[in-house]
């Protein structure tokens, strides 16, 4: 059955992507499976300049989940364009660039730099990272700011703009609607929620930054609820993220109304997770004689 999915002006070969920050720059997984067969990969968040990231401890485990406070360590957009992107294109990998800045000006500059390259399917604006002090998430909490940012980056590039939601926005629906009105082609949801762990022996937070972003299977019920709510509230496609490890998890999100999904933390537990989910959805579609696009929103109809 047909696996392709339309996200705004982009066509994906299938609805399975990988989540930013959990899949490196994509190349690291080629040893495990053919990454080019995924719908797309989202890069680690790219900033205008390279970033070292936060000091350690950066990660901690929680029940069925984890915390991270990486602090957007990345090679910077320039090195990405010259060192990573050509290899990804060589290997036939579809790339979504996740980008981050603390000012509209810098977001626009990154978008412009990427616009000079071919082979970037979409820009995913990360306005929802809880792990840096400067801005970023402030855009994601405020509908007006987020809409302005969307419009500004859109004006700077022909590449479609996707906006990645923070679950901590006072009203995610308002933010998503504002982005839709401003020309975003898709909403990705959700980024991590801030969480914490305390080291009993040291009597201090485990993470050097105190808090970190909470991800993994334990996040799934909250992410699913948000996607379900968003799907009933906006007209553009939703790309769902949050604790997706298995085909069943992915189906839950598609049934809830997502057009595609991203596998995140699960890739740490099983580097082949995204591959298995892609094959699993394909098998489900065959077994039920449905195209992948037919799965979208099947559980919305049952709404009371």
């Amino acid at each position, binding site marked *: 059955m047909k696996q392709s999915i339309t996200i705004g002006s982009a066509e994906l070969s299938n609805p399975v992507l990988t989540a930013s920050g959990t899949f490196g720059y994509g190349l690291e997984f080629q*040893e495990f499976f053919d990454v080019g067969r995924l719908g797309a990969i989202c890069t680690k968040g790219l900033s205008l300049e390279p970033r070292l990231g936060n000091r350690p401890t*950066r990660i901690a485990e929680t029940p069925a989940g984890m915390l*991270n406070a990486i602090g957007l360590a990345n090679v910077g957009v320039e090195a990405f364009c010259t060192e990573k992107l050509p290899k990804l294109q060589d290997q036939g990998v579809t790339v979504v660039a996740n980008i981050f800045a603390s000012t509209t000006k810098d977001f626009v500059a990154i978008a412009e730099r990427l616009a000079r390259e071919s082979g970037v399917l979409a820009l995913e604006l990360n306005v929802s990272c809880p792990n840096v002090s400067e801005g970023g998430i402030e855009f994601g909490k405020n509908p007006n700011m987020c809409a302005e940012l969307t419009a500004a980056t859109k004006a700077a590039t022909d590449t479609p703009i996707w906006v990645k939601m923070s679950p901590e926005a006072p009203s995610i629906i308002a933010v998503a609607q504002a982005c839709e009105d401003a020309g975003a082609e898709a909403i990705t949801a959700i980024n991590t929620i801030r969480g914490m762990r305390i080291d009993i022996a040291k009597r201090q937070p485990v993470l*050097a930054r105190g808090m970190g972003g909470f991800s993994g*299977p334990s996040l799934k019920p909250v992410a699913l609820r948000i996607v379900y709510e968003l799907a009933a509230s906006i007209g553009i496609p939703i790309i769902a993220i949050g604790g997706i490890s298995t085909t069943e998890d992915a189906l839950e999100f598609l049934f809830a109304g997502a057009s595609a999904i991203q596998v995140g933390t699960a890739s740490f537990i099983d*580097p082949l997770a995204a591959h298995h989910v892609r094959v699993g959805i394909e098998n489900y579609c065959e077994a039920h004689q449905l195209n992948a696009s037919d799965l979208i929103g099947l559980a919305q109809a049952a709404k009371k």
Partner: protein
Amino acid sequence: MKKLITAPLLDREEIGAGYHVLTFDAPDSPAAAPGQFLMMRATSWGDAPLLPRPMSYLSGGDKPQVLIKVIGEGTARMATAQPGEEYSLLGPLGKTWPESTLGKTPILVAGGVGVAPLVFLARRFQAQGVQPVVLYGGRTDQDLPLSDLLDSIADLHVTTEDGSRGDKGRVTGPLMSMLNDSVEIFTCGPDRMMAAVATIAQERQVPCQASLEAPMACGFGVCLGCPVMKTSGEYLYTCVDGPCVNAADIDWNADQ
């Protein structure tokens, strides 16, 4: 090249209080070198504990072994695992110990569970016809797993803080008396021990390799969870740039 395999536990041997050697039946296991590690978890863990645990190879081959010390939930489960239980093993990961400089006598400085990658290294030296010196320190004689094995393949010197075995004190004492132009150091153990060893090595201008530890989520460079500060002011990532590094490159005083 790294590979993800599932393999049943073949054998678990308790070799002292809280220490266990796990052996897997993994005929399709890729070749691993001393100092490399794997990320491991049992299929039965389900969603919790979530992340695989990094463990150094104690030996490679088609029956790879690890030495574990019970720390928290993951290692506690490993310490009660039954033969037949299925594990996922992702390895080999990270950088092996560099080859020894020709003609130098290797001194292996081990602390606690850090002994595992050094036992594997000692075996490589043995195979190369080199007899390494091993300096092995623990709090008590309970904290020296595999010392009998080491005794049989290396020139073993033991220290314990309470004097219950070998010299009373820490490894740094005997180490200092052994240093000269024709030795080089390989160390793995608690951070503080390695920092002390590295400092001494630097003062005496002796080459020193250390195998680092850091919390890890992925083990192959994609989560960026395992940075260690270098003297250059940049981070290295333990899982791909290490765990075996030149001790002189590390900022041992950084607040990690």
